[in-house]
């Protein structure tokens, strides 16, 4: 390991600011160009890409809690749905523009995240996961039963965000931008002392407490940030699909995000996002080409999650770190590690 000082090249500085490696940045540029390249410029493929980017963004926000403080937020999609419903109802009732509605949705989700964070403080591991799950179930029940507000299972019609254009392209760029913003926020937070504290709490709470970390503060902050981001994405969901049913809050949606995040690699943030695109598109391909075998795509999904959990619990991120990051080639090393100090990039 050489102990290079961080590069001073302006591109490197910019990338460092965005917490991206050159490879990550080029992957993002590729993703941005993808809907303009022939096989992907069809409308249904753009829809796949949108849902992939959406799941990717969710999995980053999910991994921020699950991978760092080791609490599986099993009510994650319920909180996402809460943000979506807030934004949709505001747009429906008082005609608030979705751009602000999405932020208010994020705020409401943040409040709930704060509450869940405070309530789960005394609980650890699986108990905290269960409590968040029960919160999610209760929220879904409320969304089903408060028919005067949410129209229940009939579904709440929402105005779409870019109603004027017939193409979904603008939605794609919006969700991609949201994904990058979420990645940068979570990455910058976890790069500070706070991220270290999160990891310490996640690995061993008692040891962390002994070394002077106050778990109360960090756990609440973590939960609140993660839920805020989920609520914000919920707003996008509402104004993209144009209809909201209580099903968006279902546990199976959380399981979907959870599977992507864990197959991508816990505690890596980028792993889930990287794996989401090929994964979601592959699943959609299986589903749309084998329509006479309903459920096959989800069987593959579950089997893949189980296989990763048994044989490679670190997921794709660990695989990448072991086989690509420790390369001897200078060019490849620069691509995957960026201009930052190398050993630092690996441990990150």
């Amino acid at each position: 390991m050489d102990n290079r000082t961080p590069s001073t090249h302006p591109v490197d500085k910019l990338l460092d600011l965005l917490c991206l490696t050159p490879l990550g940045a080029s992957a993002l540029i590729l993703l941005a160009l993808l809907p303009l390249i022939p096989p992907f410029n069809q409308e249904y493929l753009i829809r796949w890409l949108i849902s992939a980017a959406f799941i990717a963004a969710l999995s980053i926000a999910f991994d921020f809690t699950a991978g760092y403080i080791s609490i599986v937020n099993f009510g994650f999609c319920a909180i996402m749905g809460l943000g979506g419903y807030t934004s949709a109802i505001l747009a429906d009732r008082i005609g608030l523009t979705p751009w602000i509605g999405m932020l208010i949705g994020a705020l409401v989700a943040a409040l709930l995240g704060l509450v869940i964070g405070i309530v789960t403080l005394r609980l650890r591991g699986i108990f905290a996961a269960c409590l968040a799950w029960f919160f999610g179930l209760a929220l879904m029940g409320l969304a089903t039963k408060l028919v005067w507000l949410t129209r229940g299972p009939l579904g709440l019609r929402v105005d779409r965000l870019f109603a004027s254009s017939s193409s979904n392209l603008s939605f794609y760029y919006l969700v991609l931008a949201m994904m990058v913003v979420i990645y940068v926020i979570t990455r910058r937070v976890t790069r500070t002392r706070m991220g270290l504290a999160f990891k310490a709490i996640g690995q061993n709470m008692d040891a962390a407490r002994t070394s002077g970390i106050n778990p109360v503060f960090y756990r609440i902050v973590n939960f609140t940030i993660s839920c805020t981001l989920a609520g914000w994405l919920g707003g996008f969901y509402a104004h993209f699909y144009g209809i909201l049913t209580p099903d968006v809050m279902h546990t199976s949606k959380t399981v979907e995000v959870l599977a992507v995040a864990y197959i991508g690699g816990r505690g890596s943030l980028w792993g889930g996002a990287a794996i989401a695109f090929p994964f979601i598109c592959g699943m959609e391909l299986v589903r749309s080409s084998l329509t006479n075998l309903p459920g096959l795509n989800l069987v593959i999904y579950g089997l893949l999650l189980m296989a990763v959990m048994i044989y490679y619990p670190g997921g794709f991120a660990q695989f990448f770190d072991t086989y690509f990051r420790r390369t001897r080639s200078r060019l490849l090393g620069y691509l995957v590690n960026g201009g930052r100090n190398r050993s630092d990039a690996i441990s990150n």
Partner: protein
Amino acid sequence: MWKIEPERIVGWIKSAAGISILLSVAAAVFATLDRGPHVLVNTVVMGGMLALVSMGLAMVFGVMNIPMFAHGEYFMIGTLVAYYVFTPINAYFTTHPDSLLGSLGPLITVVAAMMVGALAGVASEVLVFSQLRKRSRENWVMNSFLLTVGLSVVLINGHQLFFGADFKGIVRFWSGAPYSILEVFIARDRAMAFFLAVVVVLAFWLFISYTRTGRAIRAVSQDETGALIVGIGLNGILVLTMALSCALAAMAGASLLFMYPSYPSVGLEPLYMAWFVVIIAGLGNVLGAVVGAFIVSLLKVLTVEYIGSGWDFVVPSALIIVILVFKPSGLFGSEVRGVLDK
């Protein structure tokens, strides 16, 4: 012989367990007087079945430290087996009304479901959990939890893939007039379901408390290493535990087929309920799960009765959140708390 000690009784009444049990009994009595005896009947029938599911869940957690998210899927397997076993038997019974096979049909169905459930349990232990156990024991609780999430997705969608997503149900197991007790009519199916649940819970309790194997299971749940040292075959016990708990869930599914027709995600509701139960009873506490099952089923019945159907997830989960805030290890405590913190 048991002596009645007033201080101990008062102490029990003041404990969380005593307060909650007495409160539930009072609520049940009040609701029964207020709304009629069907409240009590529903509570008891559902509570019995829920006890079977959550006992298995509690045992899997206590012995194997697996927070089982796929437990409802064994319930689903039970309903599926029951449907495919009972339908031909019933067809045979209608053509041969007085054959012995026909009248024993429901029992054969339940036993078949139990056996298939046990086999499914053995298969999942051997193919899935022991594979993980061989590879790593670190972070076991969380990893095995994710494994059960995957298992649940596979089983639900496997059902859809091979058997279709439509409802596969029956009208009734036992024909004949409903029983009438004190002018309350109870359908035979419900009465038999409750009777079966009581028999199985009792048998299970006797097995756990008084047989050598039952003692071995309890030993493993208390201390795995200690159990290994005194010569208990750990792998056998783990397989047996899984088989037993899955058989219990499958049995509950089979005997409730008349209420829950078989479809891919039929297991989700019993799963939620069973998790409510084990969380308020304290994870890993098998006997507490039996009591907790009746409390949760009472909560659900009361919610449906007084607030309306559809609220039966909102109110119980809100209450359970409150309970968890004040008693993080459950109403009846639990000795395996050290494991949970991982």
